[in-house]
């Protein structure tokens, strides 16, 4: 629940700090979001290897990675500011025309990630696997629509 408030608050962060925008270059904003997303990928991959059976399922570790992913998720959106649209990145141009949809998908991702934390704590391993799949599909949703592959 707290994360949800952070998430909603994060929508307003860019506006509140807009008077400081001169200090942060668009390139740095891109680096920031790429860093956060790289960190998310790190943690999601760690859970993925457990789900795929490459490494044994370890509930404590899984909860650890899931919680870190849930912490990072609300931070991603801060890095997607329209002023970065001319910076060369993996973000498709159409992202900026569909920011509302993008934000909606990001909030859905947060919901699924928070659910993943819950299920990791209480659910059966098969349920964890299922919820992890749902979360990863949420990742895929934006990747398919808004991310260039190379």
């Amino acid at each position, binding site marked *: 629940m707290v994360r949800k408030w952070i998430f909603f608050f994060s929508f307003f962060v860019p506006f509140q700090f807009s008077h400081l925008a001169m200090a942060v270059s668009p390139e740095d904003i891109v680096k920031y979001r790429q860093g956060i997303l790289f960190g998310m*990928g790190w943690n*999601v*991959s760690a*859970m*993925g*290897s457990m*789900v*795929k059976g490459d490494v044994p399922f370890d509930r404590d570790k899984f909860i650890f990675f899931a919680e870190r992913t849930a912490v990072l998720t609300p931070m991603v959106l801060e890095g997607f500011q329209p002023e970065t649209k001319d910076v060369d990145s993996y973000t498709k141009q159409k992202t900026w025309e569909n920011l509302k949809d993008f934000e909606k998908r990001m909030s859905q991702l947060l919901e699924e990630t928070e659910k993943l934390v819950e299920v990791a704590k209480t659910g059966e391993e098969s349920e964890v*696997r*299922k919820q*992890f*799949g*749902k*979360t*990863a*599909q949420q*990742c*895929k949703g934006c*990747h398919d629509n808004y*991310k*260039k*592959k*190379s």
Partner: protein
Amino acid sequence: MEEKERVLIWDIAIRSFHFLLVLLMAFSVWTGIQGGIYLEYHFLSGYCILCLVLFRVLWGVLGSTTALFKSFVKTPGTVAKFLLEIVRGTAPPFAGHNPAGGYMVVTLLITIFCQTITGLFSDDQIFNAGPLRSFIQADTAGMLTNWHHITFDILVVLSAIHVFAIFWHEWILDERLIISMITGKKEKGKESERIIFASHRRLLIALTISIVIVWGLVNY
């Protein structure tokens, strides 16, 4: 309408190959679109498809007459002539693949081959990566993943043409191709007597070779 004698044209290998390929491709499309943990099955399906393609290539050299590449890959001139005859409605029926269909077989095999090979190097940039992904750089993998999607689009178009051609034969030319592809039998024509069917031993050899190659690629 009088019943003509029906003879075997397509051996069990070709028929099984064909419908397994259809099923696996449909399954791959579905799992691919789902993503997430479904990609595990997408990968397995892809390995099987690559096995099938390799098998078909071997069968095109070792297999029964109607499966042999040399029996159905004709000169482009023959294809042009055939297509012209199709439009005019004067094309003769063929026991095996007709000249245009022969090229479609080759085109589909090449495209499906590219589809599976690019898949081996692809990743979803979430938590799934093809078995050969670690041998290449991230940017190259991104490019190959893009190609994996482009060849998919090409396959959709090719499949549409393929299905269109089948219904052309069914409805316009009044040839029962679909049932032939299931039972393997067609109405007796002059060509059908010359078909030599390959032995089961060859089938086993071709199948073993293709499975070993794919197993080696995936577990390298």
